[in-house]
């Protein structure tokens, strides 16, 4: 360094100059700020502050908010969220609001429906699954068939109040093989151990893949009186005939267990079917509905199952008015085969040609199955109607959109009145300019 230079030789002066050079641009920038810039900065600061506060509160709230489990029950985390391990498949499900104050348990379960039982899941026995499924389908017991022995029940089951289903359980034949238990990922929820967690039986919550049906009163789904009546012997016979191909198919493709199920207990069959989601589709032929077979045949011939879908629905039950507005779209085309998946029906011959089974299905089961099929249809209709835009058109679409808008607009502001709107659209200066009379006059000139 040149020490003879009066500036460079003086380190203090040099440092002061450097400091000035560093500060000056910033100071100049600061001076350029308008009141509006400052206001924006202030607003940003306040927002950040509010966001930081909100985040803290959110963390606190999250501990209070219950976590919905797949079975429809709600698990509450309190104080120490990590204490309750959430099953993997339940992660990411948005929390439900509000926990009641004064709860002392770390994890509490809110009963999603009518309370049936409570049991601990510290070591859930595999058979529990069968039992739970059974509760979903409260099908009338088959009085014609008597089971001599009881399936060994686990201690948990003993704790439960007895329901008609449980009574049946007590008469099951011990020699019967245990119904197959699926180890698919969807069903693994019951096997997950959640320390300190009390679990309710699963709610009757329909999912997209596995429609679950409430055992609603028959009248709700069956307007036609003849369906709700006791089937005549001829009718029963026809139903059995239709049932036969399915049984055969199953025998050919499914395990021995299922064979036994078909020949022994229709109720158990229901349970097994439910435990394996894909077999829900088989439920359609279980009904042995004549019209379904006919339509499926026509549908296959035409090669456009969706175009025949409305016919199917029209024949099974009176279609609701919304059906008139349904368009044939990829959604419907995708959904319809779900309803009309009659893979297990022999569609080549007539209905009577393929009657193999000599079994006579109990009337209760037929009724219950018809009820469930109608429930399936109703559920499917709901799905179709509620699919926005694609399946609703014309006035119905307008009404639907208006309804949704009304619903959205009527939603209360939950967290104050700030930042409640989406705020996606921003009016630009150019846009604003183009709407001014002054601007248009200038343009005209």
């Amino acid at each position, binding site marked *: 360094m040149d020490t003879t230079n009066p500036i460079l030789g003086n380190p203090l002066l040099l440092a002061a100059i450097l400091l000035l050079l560093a500060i000056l641009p910033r100071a100049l920038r600061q001076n350029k700020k*308008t*009141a*509006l810039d400052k*206001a*924006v900065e*202030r*607003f*940003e600061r*306040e*927002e950040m502050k509010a966001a930081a506060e909100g985040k803290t509160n959110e963390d606190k709230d999250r501990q209070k908010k219950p976590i919905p489990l797949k079975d429809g029950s709600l698990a509450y985390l309190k104080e120490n969220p990590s204490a309750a391990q959430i099953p993997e498949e339940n992660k990411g499900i948005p929390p439900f609001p509000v926990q009641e104050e004064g709860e002392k348990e770390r994890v509490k379960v809110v009963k999603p429906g009518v309370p049936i039982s409570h049991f601990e899941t510290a070591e859930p026995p595999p058979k529990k699954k069968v039992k739970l499924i059974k509760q979903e389908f409260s099908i009338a017991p088959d009085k014609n068939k008597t089971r001599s022995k009881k399936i060994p029940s686990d201690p948990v089951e003993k704790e439960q109040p007895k329901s008609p289903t449980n009574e049946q359980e007590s008469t099951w034949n011990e020699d019967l093989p245990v119904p197959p238990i699926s180890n698919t990922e969807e069903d693994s929820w019951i096997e997950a151990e959640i320390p300190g967690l009390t679990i309710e039986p699963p709610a009757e919550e329909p999912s997209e893949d596995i429609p679950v049906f409430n055992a609603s009163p028959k009248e709700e789904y069956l307007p036609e009186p003849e369906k709700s009546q006791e089937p005549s012997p001829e009718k029963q016979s026809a139903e059995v005939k239709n049932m036969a191909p399915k049984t055969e198919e199953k025998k050919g493709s499914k395990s021995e267990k299922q064979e036994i199920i078909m020949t022994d207990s229709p109720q158990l069959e229901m349970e097994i079917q439910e435990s394996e989601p894909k077999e829900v589709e088989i439920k359609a032929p279980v009904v042995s509905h004549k019209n379904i077979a006919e339509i499926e045949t026509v549908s296959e011939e035409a090669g456009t199952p969706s175009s025949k879908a409305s016919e199917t629905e029209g024949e099974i039950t009176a279609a609701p008015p919304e059906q008139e507005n349904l368009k044939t779209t990829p959604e419907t085309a995708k959904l319809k085969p779900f309803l009309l998946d009659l893979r297990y029906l022999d569609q080549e011959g007539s209905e009577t040609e393929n009657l193999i089974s000599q079994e006579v299905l109990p009337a209760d089961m037929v009724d219950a199955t018809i009820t469930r099929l109608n429930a399936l249809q109703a559920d499917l209709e709901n799905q179709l109607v509620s699919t926005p835009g694609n399946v609703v058109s014309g006035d119905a679409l307008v009404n639907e959109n208006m309804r949704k808008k009304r619903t959205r607009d009527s939603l209360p502001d939950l967290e*104050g*009145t*700030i*930042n*409640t*709107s989406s*705020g996606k659209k*921003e*009016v*630009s*200066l150019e*846009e*604003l*300019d183009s*709407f*001014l*009379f*002054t*601007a248009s*006059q*200038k343009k*005209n*000139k």
Partner: protein
Amino acid sequence: MTFKNKIIAVGGGKGGVGKSVVCANMAVTLALTGQRVVLVDADFGASSLHALLGISSPKYGFREYFDHSGLDSNGEEALLLDTGINNLKFLSGAGDMPGSADISVKNQNKVISYIKSLDADHILMDLGPGTNFHIIDYFNVGGKNVVVSTPEMTSIMKSFSFIKATLFRRISQEFKSSSDLQHLIDLSKNPAMAEDCYEIDSLREKVEEMHPQKLERVNEIIREFQPGLVINRVRRQKDILMGDNLLKLSKKYLDVDVKFLGYLIESDDVRDSIDEMKPFLIKDPQSKPSENIQQVIGSLTNTNIHLVKKDDSIYVSQQIKLSSGWGQ
């Protein structure tokens, strides 16, 4: 302080943007800082400012002032009503009698004269919506003009129209004696000219063409007119930027420098205060909207004000006079 500088006129083209709420709380803030303030409800025909102060039925208002019939022995002094807030007096409007807003020019001048004569440090005038000459003339009485707008596009557009009408009215009043200029400026008398004088540059061109010696005065008027802007009911940052759009448009078409004074956030505190008929600044001077108003007053008076509440009393914890800013 001259009468011109002590009058703060709060207006805006659109109704329902919160002019009265902003004005009332501005007046309260100024009063709490120890200055004598008169709050005037100049929304003739639809007076409601008294409700924001919790005055259920003003005994006197401008209606009594016009005919003097209802005033007691105190005369015009009786018009100034107590508000229960130190240093703050209230002058009620003309009620809600149909036709009250259509006061004669004589009465209007009378009102303006009376307001100018009031002995106070600050007189805040809360105007009604619209851009008619009554409103604009009251607005132009103020030495400081505050335009209140909400961030919505329509509100910004109306605010622009309000600023434009105010500017043109100022020029028109300046050249009352010049009929040809009146034709140019007062477009209500000559709509055909509207196409020619839609913006300030075109007006300047016409003035220069007809009376070049008067152009400088026109430019002076334009320079002197520096309204302040308060954006009310702000919910997000872009709402404040809508105010920036108004500033830019005003500069572009009117060559007017609009000063951004601040904003008020959308808050339940404000709504609650209206329902409770108690200014939110009295309820909680440290709430967000109260802080916003203090910012506005700070910009307006070049001060840094900070109010706090303790034991049901409000104190000024900080009041620093700034060396520079708007409204010197």
